[in-house]
């Protein structure tokens, strides 16, 4: 495999010091290949934003190495770091445009920093406005643009730096579903046409599904798993992966394999007291370890209503024992689900 454009090795980041120290990232190892769209997903607080900020060193990692395009970022002098950052574009959830500049002048901003003559910069900015499909808005101020339009301007602004890498920090999280799709298309298009490597940070599986080729799952600062999007979607190996792929609960089929559950029973609560500890009593009184596969129960005025799916071990006597026990309870009915499939 070719040399990766981004390589994070043994990356850790701690915030605060002494007793209040919080580990935001723990020993992260990721390699991102040139030209791919790499996704990093995790729930809020998982450390995604910190991770992406470690790539351009907006956050300095506590330990570990960050190599971007062959350069060890942590070893650069402030001046060299600023130079290196110019080839790493970044877009944000909050767009972060300069509110007192027009769309055109926002796009000119990085070229101004690079000392490009005004005339050339304006010409290039117009080209970029064309690419992001906002040619008519060159004199508009950000306050006059919609969220999606602002993000397009932000994308054009980073493209003005001719970056090698584009970091997207929850870039579509503030947008409605349709605009999100349009922006994702644009990012994908940029990746294909300009060969820019894209790193997408998101909490939405949808975004990963839509454009990423590979994905890393981050959970409480730990890298839970990495793989192609197909792999991870088909069979998430980690607990965090499963939670993300199946936010409404894991299909029973999978849990059954996982928990070595052979028999599934459905228990219906018909208004008995909600304070009856059924599962616990099953374990204590009958010695049957039941596994809750799914439940939809609610407590109405202290009375339990709804159903629950329990997985029981294969042992025939145990199943019979459990069924008998549950049947003996008031206001609860039970039936076996012979061949359960989601």
């Amino acid at each position, binding site marked *: 495999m070719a040399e990766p454009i981004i390589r994070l090795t043994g990356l850790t980041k701690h915030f605060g010091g002494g007793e209040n120290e919080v580990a935001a990232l723990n020993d992260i190892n990721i390699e991102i290949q040139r030209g791919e769209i790499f996704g990093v997903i995790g729930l809020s607080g998982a450390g995604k934003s910190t991770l992406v900020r470690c790539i351009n060193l907006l956050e300095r990692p506590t330990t570990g190495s960050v190599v971007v395009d062959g350069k060890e970022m942590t070893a650069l002098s402030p001046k060299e770091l600023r130079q290196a950052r110019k080839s790493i574009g970044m877009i944000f959830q909050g767009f*972060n445009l300069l509110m007192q500049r027009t769309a055109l002048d926002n796009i000119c901003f990085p070229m101004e*920093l690079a000392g490009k003559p005004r005339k050339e910069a304006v010409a290039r900015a117009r080209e970029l406005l064309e690419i992001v499909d906002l040619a008519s808005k060159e004199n508009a*101020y950000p306050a006059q643009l919609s969220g999606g339009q602002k993000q397009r301007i932000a994308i054009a602004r980073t493209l003005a730096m001719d970056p090698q890498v584009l970091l997207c920090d929850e870039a579509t999280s503030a947008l409605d579903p349709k605009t999100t799709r349009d922006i994702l298309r644009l990012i994908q298009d940029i990746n294909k046409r300009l060969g820019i490597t894209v790193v997408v940070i998101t909490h939405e599986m949808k975004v990963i599904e839509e454009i990423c080729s590979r994905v890393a799952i981050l959970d409480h600062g730990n890298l839970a798993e990495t793989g192609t999007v197909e792999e991870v979607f088909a069979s998430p190996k980690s607990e965090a992966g499963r939670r993300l792929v199946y936010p409404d609960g894991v299909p029973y089929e999978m849990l059954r394999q996982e928990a070595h559950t052979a028999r599934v029973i459905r228990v219906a609560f018909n208004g008995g007291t909600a304070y009856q500890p059924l599962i616990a009593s099953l374990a204590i009184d009958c010695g049957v370890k039941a596994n809750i596969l799914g439940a939809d129960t609610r407590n109405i005025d202290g009375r339990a209503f709804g159903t629950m799916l329990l997985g029981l071990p294969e042992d025939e006597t145990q199943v019979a024992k459990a069924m008998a026990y549950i049947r003996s309870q008031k206001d609860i009915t039970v039936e076996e689900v012979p061949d359960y499939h989601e």
Partner: protein
Amino acid sequence: MSEKLIELLMSWGINERLATSQVEYLAGYTVPFAIWETIYTTVLATLFAYVIGLPLGIILVTGEKAGIRPLPAALMKVLNTIVNLLRSVPFLILMVCVAPLSRLIVGTSIGTVASIVPLTLAAAPFVARVVESSLREMDRGVIEAAQSMGCSPWEIVTKVMLPECRPSLITGLTTATITILSYGAMAGTIGGGGLGAMALLRGHGRQETVVLYIAVIFLVVLVQIIQSIGTAVAVKTDRRIQHTQTKRRKGK
């Protein structure tokens, strides 16, 4: 003309001596001159106060621990203490205390020009705090975006923070100018000129009520003018609200 005025003042119950002296005083173009002195003192003192206060205010924001160019905590502590110290000394006391400094800088410790020194010294820390509070409104995300584009701290200050905070800085400038104008009114006590001195020395000191009122009225008018211009410029140059303004106009 002046006889009629004297008569008018006497008809208001002012005795002849006071009526005559006031009319004679006012007839000597003293009011336009006092206005000029007030404007000149205020403008110069504001200018010098910004020369010191603007960089100081910027440093107070950028130099702190989480700022874009952190400075040693001890230095920040010293700067903050100096600013607070200067702000806590009453202006009248400060004016007397810095007399030697005025003598050193402008060669004299009394008069209109000399009053610019204590005015600047009193206003600079005030300006620093005003600038500081404007810059603190800056969206951290925008600074982060600028950093991600490889901006140096200097570029962030000059190309991002100052232009982005322009409306708030203009509002601050307006407040500072008016504060300095009112400080300047006290400069009469060390022989400074202007409307303040006129009100204080002639109006209050000699019981020349008409002079007092005229001076105060012109001070009020000056403040109104400064405030109106400041607000108008701040609003007009703020690109964040242009959107709603055009909308409102269309709606009418």
